[in-house]
């Protein structure tokens, strides 16, 4: 093997290894990329997990949006958890207050984390929460119950094709997990 070729080999190997390492990094870069795409395109119906500020909109009285609330308790979670109202009709731009009811049925203190999901996914970006129990972990002592507040408004820019937004909260038992806040 000539010296020249050795040199050219090394250069090519360097480029290829850099490519492989870069693609390994790209795999991880897909994680935030996916989140951004989901937010922009409403792929998975995730909502933002920090409070949005409510600017007084002109409330669009001509449109009525049906909001449905759903509670889902994961199988290892010993709580009772349900919405105060299952269904309400709101105007876009209106600031609405409601709450979910939770009760710890077990004899142990338990920490729960509610994960919101909106369907249809494209509507998620227009569903804004100024206050939500899902922003924080919820801790309930044994047999304790609580009212978990939710204040939200629907962005008046919501596409006309969407007339119903379903908001589901999935309640996870994170007592034994080392999460500090949510991942983001």
């Amino acid at each position, binding site marked *: 093997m000539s010296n020249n070729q050795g040199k050219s080999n090394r250069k090519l190997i360097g480029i290829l290894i850099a490519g492989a390492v870069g693609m390994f990094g790209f795999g991880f870069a897909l994680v935030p990329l996916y989140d951004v795409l989901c937010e922009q395109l409403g792929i998975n119906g995730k909502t933002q997990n920090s409070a949005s500020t409510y600017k007084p909109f002109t409330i669009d009285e001509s449109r009525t949006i049906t909001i449905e609330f759903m509670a*889902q308790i994961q*199988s290892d979670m010993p709580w009772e958890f349900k919405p105060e109202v299952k*269904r309400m009709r709101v105007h876009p731009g209106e600031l609405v207050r409601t709450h979910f009811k939770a009760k710890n*049925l077990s004899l142990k203190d338990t920490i729960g984390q509610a994960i919101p*999901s909106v369907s249809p996914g494209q509507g998620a970006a227009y569903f804004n929460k100024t206050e939500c129990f899902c922003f924080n972990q919820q801790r309930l002592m044994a*047999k304790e119950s609580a009212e978990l507040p939710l204040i939200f408004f629907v962005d008046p820019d919501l596409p006309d*094709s969407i007339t119903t937004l379903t908001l589901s909260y999935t309640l996870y038992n994170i007592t*034994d997990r080392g999460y500090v806040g949510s991942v983001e």
Partner: protein
Amino acid sequence: MKRVWYIFLALLFTPYVLAAEMPLNMTKGVTDISGQVYNLHMTILYICCAIGVVVFGVMIYSMINHRKSKGAIAANFHESTKVEIAWTIAPFIILIIMAIPATKTLIAMEDPSDADITIKITGSQWKWHYSYFDQDIEFYSLLSTPRAQIEGTEEKGENYLLEVDKPLVLPINKKVRFLMTSEDVIHSWWVPAFAVKKDANPGFINEAWTRIDIPGTYRGQCAELCGKDHGFMPIVVEALSQADFDIWVAEQKNQASTAAAEAEASLSKSLSMDELMAQGEQVYMSRCAACHQPNGMGLPGVFPPMKGSPITTGPLMDHLEIVINGKAGTAMQAFGKQLTAQEIATVITYERNAWDNNTGDMIQAADVSQHGQ
């Protein structure tokens, strides 16, 4: 050579003629959408078959007529821009022809708006839970095929593995919206007759819808690998006329209040050891045996044994706690929400006394209720 081909073809096709009782094609289903999907499937199948006949026809012609043994001498051509462009564009056009109806059907399928009735479907290892959004009805739906049939000690029934204890009941001619989610891993709710297959993802909701034309019983299965008993969580839907559906809803309300009264009554009732054990065994076999196994030995490294375990032979409080509230981060579900106090009492009694555990403990419904079911 020819004979080999005939034998080959015969081997390939006769079995299907014999297996006449099994439908060999996609079902047309009982909804407008499933009919569209069926037509789409058949159209594409025919197009593919036609292309196949032409392409393979040319190839077989060449194989028969251009053999060296027949004195064929190889021609010299090896490219032709015209031909190559033609057979790049032709498939393109065919694909566009396929894409148009597919797009139309897809857009129709993905529009769950203006539904008449909403049902939340929750998958969990390994059962379905249905909750009627406006009717206040909710229940679990479990495989009802007896273990003896699965193990082959009993003859298999007509609907082997496709039968449940409590089917989902839906009205016909109504737009039914499904909201899917999961309690643990990903499941997929599939009823071929409706052409509905949608994943149930933990932490997220998915939507699908159907409008059933014909009353009847329709069966499906979970279509996403969800662990050990993925093959044992069927779906059964009973489609009723609106009148029958209303009767059914009323019945459910009655049953719910009767059940509540019974549960109330059971709290003050004391069952004998024999009664507890007999009922407990039934509950154990239907709810616990899938993981912990009928012999209580569990699956080493996957599901812990019941026999001689520190839970079943240790303090009663721990045993109640784990059965009622589950164990976080594992497949052990909180059964407090799935079973009545009496069922829990019997199954715990059974677990504490079966398989030589013999603790002698007797648990009554009231004990369970005290624990805070």
